[in-house]
């Protein structure tokens, strides 16, 4: 029996070797993501984008490798349990054990930072997606790139521009204690001061806050023109619920992360109308690439993409696909292609300067009649900013 199996295996191998030139092996592309743990709710937006991309590329006959051949994509995915230490281990495994051809990025800033040294050590280029921090500029360029246009210092400048254009003279700032919120606040405070915008309430709250009523009562009493909630998805939801209950009447209301996720608008219907959030992409302009992505995503997953995370993930694979089409799978050529190329993406042209996206301007979205529109910067608007009018 053993002999028979051995013979069978040998003949299968021989057959495979013979067949190889006709049907090349798949391009193996690996990544880790938070399927469980603290960040698990955020991950599907990114996983969906990756899966949609692989499906579309395979339907087109495969990934174009330097114009020489096309090979189908096989995605290899692991769960990092929201733990950056696990991500480090997984990317080491992907590179040294699974011997993947390409890597996609994990979810979140800490995970991107954690695996940067692994990429550097193995000289393996990877395009980042859902990460943002001013600290990314300290990273050594060469094997990691960040697509984000939402770095905190640029966000502060853009926010002041948006506030001034909306005639906001005073604000309340509510800040989640997680790093991204704090980083935003650090740059926002001096920018507001320089612009003469008064901060009437300044409150920090813990990441797992369960009740915001006390803070919001204070906000209501202060009657600011604007509320800036440097929030994450969980507390963004809490804010809408409580602000509606308390009756916050500010004409400008901003929530950092959350409203761009598909379920958010469905959850609140009209009450979320007028809320401004972070983002620089909308399918409601006239960009054909964006419309195609939006339609395909909605068709496949029966929900809207996350205007932030799905979009960043999609942009990262658009860039990867174009770079691989030019350079093939050779790491040095690929690195060169990504570093020097200009790429067509759903957020427009993207080019990297060091590790950073050098082109895409920082932007903001607003929910208007259940749709998310780009309201800033003005030259990218799909709709002008409208004041928030009550909580229908």
């Amino acid at each position, binding site marked *: 029996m053993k002999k028979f199996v051995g013979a069978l295996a040998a003949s299968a191998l021989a057959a495979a070797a013979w067949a190889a030139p006709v049907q090349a092996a798949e391009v193996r592309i690996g990544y880790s993501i938070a399927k*469980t743990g603290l960040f698990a709710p955020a991950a599907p937006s990114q996983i969906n984008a990756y899966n949609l991309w692989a499906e579309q590329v395979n339907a087109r006959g495969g990934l174009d490798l330097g114009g020489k051949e096309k090979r189908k994509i096989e995605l290899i995915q692991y769960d990092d349990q929201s*733990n950056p230490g696990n991500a480090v281990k997984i990317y080491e495994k992907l590179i*040294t054990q699974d011997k993947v051809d390409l890597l996609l990025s994990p979810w979140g800033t800490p995970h991107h930072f954690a695996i940067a040294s692994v990429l550097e050590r193995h000289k393996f280029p990877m395009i980042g997606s859902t990460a943002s921090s001013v600290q990314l500029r300290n990273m050594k360029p060469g094997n990691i790139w960040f697509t984000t246009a939402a770095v905190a210092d640029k966000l502060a400048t853009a926010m002041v521009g948006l506030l001034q254009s909306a005639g906001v003279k005073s604000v309340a700032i509510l800040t989640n*204690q997680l790093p991204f919120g704090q980083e935003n606040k650090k740059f926002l405070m001096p920018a507001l001061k320089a612009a003469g915008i008064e901060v009437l309430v300044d409150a920090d709250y813990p990441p797992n806050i369960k009740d915001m009523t006390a803070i919001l009562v204070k906000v209501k009493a202060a009657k600011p023109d604007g509320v800036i909630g440097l929030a994450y998805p969980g507390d963004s939801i809490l804010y809408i619920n409580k602000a509606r209950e308390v009756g916050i009447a500010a004409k400008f209301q901003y929530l950092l992360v959350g409203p761009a996720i598909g379920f958010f608008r469905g959850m609140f219907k009209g009450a979320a109308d007028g809320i401004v959030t972070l983002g620089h992409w909308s399918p409601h302009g006239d960009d054909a690439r964006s419309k195609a992505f939006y339609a395909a995503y909605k068709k496949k997953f029966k929900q809207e993409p996350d205007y932030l995370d799905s979009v960043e993930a999609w942009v990262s694979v658009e860039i990867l696909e174009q770079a691989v089409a030019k350079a093939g799978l050779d790491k040095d050529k690929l690195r060169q292609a990504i570093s020097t190329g200009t790429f067509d993406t759903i957020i427009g042209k993207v080019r990297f300067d060091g590790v950073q996206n050098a082109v895409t301007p920082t932007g903001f979205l607003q929910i208007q009649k259940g749709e998310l529109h780009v309201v800033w910067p003005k030259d990218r608007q799909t709709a002008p900013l409208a004041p928030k009018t009550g909580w229908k």
Partner: protein
Amino acid sequence: MRFATPRETVPLLLVAAIAAILPLLGSDYYLGVGFALFGWIALAQSWTIVSGLAGYISLGHVVFAGIGGYVLVLTWGAVPVWAGAVLGALAAGLFALLVGLPVLRVRGPYFVILTFGLAEFAKYVVINIENALGRFGRLILGGPPVETLYWAMAAAALAGTLAVIVTRRVRLGAGLAAVREDELAAETIGVPTVRFKLLAFALSAVLPGFVGALFVLRTGYFEPAQAFDPVISFTIVTMAIIGGSEDARGPVFGALFLVVLSELLWSNFPQVYMIILGALLIGFVLFAPNGVAGLLDRRRPSGGARAAA
């Protein structure tokens, strides 16, 4: 001095053998797995000193690792890396000495809750300090390579194993066992319970401080919510339960079992491994309540009986 018994030599040799073999496989991945394994062994051994020997079940041991990691990032650039890790260990020990007196006054479930609360409290204090300083996660660039971290962590695992073995042999260990069985009686016969408990608490904190510093070096990024993640505390207790003995074997078996199992599962069944792992753990608690060590002792009843005596 008594000769080393199998239950003392087995865990030591096991850790040393694994440490020697893994680098031969010549892959960063195996070094990474070894790093994690040794980290857990060091944590679980440290935990055993206060929770296994003295019976004070700590559900907040992550606090020491978090402090170690925090001290490392605070001293980053100011002192050499190794000194930062050692300072982290010392700071964790000092913290244990400071909070030990009030904390160790309560027993049983109250101690469990108190240690858990203390770790959460420390987490939020650090979060607030960082925010007041205007820091939002600290990036550490240019830390030591994975080989260096691997050997440092292997040394920590050996040190932890040795610490449990030695503690059990000396007066302190006997005193802690007396405290565990009946603290009042121990005090009556002249065991300096307060001093012993405090010493055990501090001892059990030093190594986690070091391990926490290495954890931060491994990811190159410090964020309080992750450095003080309560899941780390829970995992330590889980490993101790699975290991199933209050000598130095338990933590080694428990960590080895859980790390190897979860490693095999996630790399082979990435989509469902959590479900399989959960089912296996439930089965384990149901059918092998005395853990891996209990299973081994049952195989060799003579050894188990002698050890129990």
